[in-house]
């Protein structure tokens, strides 16, 4: 990873310097890099978030999603197990399922030639397999069990369904590590989530720019006035970041310290964040104590493209799906829990204003990646600078650091072999 490497098929582009503090802009621009990512990351030895277990509550429930470019069907079969397979007919490659989600499905039939699949992705029927009146049909050498869409390995972590195309991917517990697992358990462990809404935000930028943004604890209180002014999150609050050993997963967390005196370091920076902005209806920020640990914010990411969010009582999962080099779908699923009181549910609905496409906090994350994508348009030879907090990708008690962004690139380069 430390050797200087040229990007694939773009020999004229600038090499990737040693270490983790520089990121060449071509990595956000190059079509061949995008294609390589599909093979090495999205089809490679990683776990990808597919759905929530509660979204497939009953046998016969199904939904469709994507792992990178690849369409996937996720099902619960009559044995009550979760299955996933590529949404591609083994015959001529058409989509097998055209619906986003549904129930009571016993089988899937390709519309093109009615090749039929069971909910585990096994080919169970080929229309006119034996021909008509002894003529036509498939040759005897054709065996249905030798054909079928690729099946995924499945792992379920506290109600989150992950899938992988790879046989080499480590078990999910090993992949995530204890610290990340504990932080997922903190939010979802032993609870029954309820989907409150689903929205897709179409980002005008490369998927990695969004993942950088998620992992960037440095920007949060600077770009997002809302966070800072209402003391949802200040860099001077208690908190820190966790970066796992691979670098690819991270947690950023903070806890309000109401006793802390107003930090003079902030005023000295004369940041836009220091305004006198006040809410006309402050009930937006009235929270209930859900986790009993004082932690008001926890943003957790799993490499390559999953985010679990707790911002006060606004709980959501985010699935990032690259659509093209400069186009990315950000799929939001807002969550409550089955044991919410009506008051708690209303609190979640109000705090949902903080996140999503119109979120007081997250709307800027939707456009800032596009600002970078447009800003670097003529600068593929140049590089981003990631030196805040040093050159390493380690956990820290300070959030004035880009350590988890460097961690992302550490894991990315390891997977891509660059």
């Amino acid at each position, binding site marked *: 990873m430390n050797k200087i490497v040229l990007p694939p098929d773009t020999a004229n582009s600038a090499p990737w310097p040693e270490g983790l503090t520089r990121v060449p802009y071509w990595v956000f621009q190059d079509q061949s890099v995008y294609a390589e990512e599909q093979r090495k990351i999205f089809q490679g030895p990683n776990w990808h978030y597919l759905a929530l277990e509660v979204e497939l509550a009953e046998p016969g429930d199904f939904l469709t999603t994507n792992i990178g470019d690849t369409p996937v069907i996720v099902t619960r079969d009559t044995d009550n197990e979760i299955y996933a397979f590529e949404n591609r007919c083994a015959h001529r490659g058409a989509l097998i399922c055209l619906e986003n989600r549904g129930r009571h499905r016993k089988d899937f039939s390709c519309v093109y030639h009615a090749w039929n699949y069971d909910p585990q992705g096994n080919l169970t029927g080929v229309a006119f397999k034996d021909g008509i009146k002894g003529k036509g049909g498939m040759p005897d050498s054709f065996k249905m069990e030798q054909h079928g869409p690729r099946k995924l390995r499945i792992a379920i972590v506290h109600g989150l369904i992950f899938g992988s195309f790879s046989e080499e991917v480590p078990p999910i517990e090993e992949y995530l590590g204890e610290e990340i697992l504990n932080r997922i358990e903190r939010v979802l462990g032993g609870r029954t989530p309820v989907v409150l*809404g689903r929205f897709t935000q179409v*980002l*005008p930028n490369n998927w990695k720019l969004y993942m950088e943004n998620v992992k960037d604890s440095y920007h949060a209180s600077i770009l997002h006035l809302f966070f800072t002014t209402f003391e949802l999150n200040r860099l001077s609050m208690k908190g820190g970041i966790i970066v796992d050993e691979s670098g690819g997963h991270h947690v950023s967390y903070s806890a309000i310290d109401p006793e802390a005196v107003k930090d003079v370091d902030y005023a000295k920076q004369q940041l836009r964040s220091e305004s006198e902005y006040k809410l006309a209806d402050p009930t937006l920020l009235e929270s209930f104590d859900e986790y009993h640990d004082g932690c008001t914010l926890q943003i957790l990411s799993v490499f390559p493209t999953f985010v679990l969010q707790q911002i006060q009582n606004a709980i959501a999962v985010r699935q990032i799906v690259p659509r093209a080099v400069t186009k990315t779908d950000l799929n939001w699923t807002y969550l409550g829990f089955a044991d919410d009181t009506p008051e708690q549910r209303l609190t979640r609905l*109000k705090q*949902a204003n903080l996140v999503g496409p*119109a979120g007081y906090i997250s709307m800027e994350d939707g*456009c800032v990646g596009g600002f970078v994508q447009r800003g670097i348009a003529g600068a593929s030879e140049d590089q981003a600078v990631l030196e805040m907090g040093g050159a390493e990708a380690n956990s820290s008690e300070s959030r004035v650091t880009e350590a988890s962004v460097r961690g992302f690139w550490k894991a990315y380069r390891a997977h891509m072999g660059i």
Partner: protein
Amino acid sequence: MYGNSLQYITKAQADYARCIDDDRLEEWPSLFHGPCLYKITTASNYRDGLEAGIVFANSRGMLTDRVSALREANIYERQTYRHILGLPSILSEDGAKVKSETPFMVARILQDGDTSIYATGRYFDTYEIVDGKAQLNERTVVCDSSRIDTLLALPL
């Protein structure tokens, strides 16, 4: 009553669209009366009965806060909308309370001139007819698509 309601609601719709498109957002909260509810959601969430909105406000104060945040806090490129509204359908009338559904199409014009159809959908509204005026109590904006381009800044 029916004919008049339609006329009153049509005027209220036109006033609402002009308020946003003319960038008089500070006046937008005052278009809501009584038990204010404003929510933006998608057809798929609406059909499935999922409660959360892209925007959710159950007080005029929350609408005021939306406007203040857009003016003072949030970062986004300057943009304007052009609302094209279809004819309202009266869904029900109960005394002075009238429920209606109105289709809309909103074009978004960015500062570089780039213009696109940003959203299409329906307004599900509850009005109270008072002294020959339709006063908006509740508006649920149901976007046809679940995909929102980049961000949703201005209200629909």
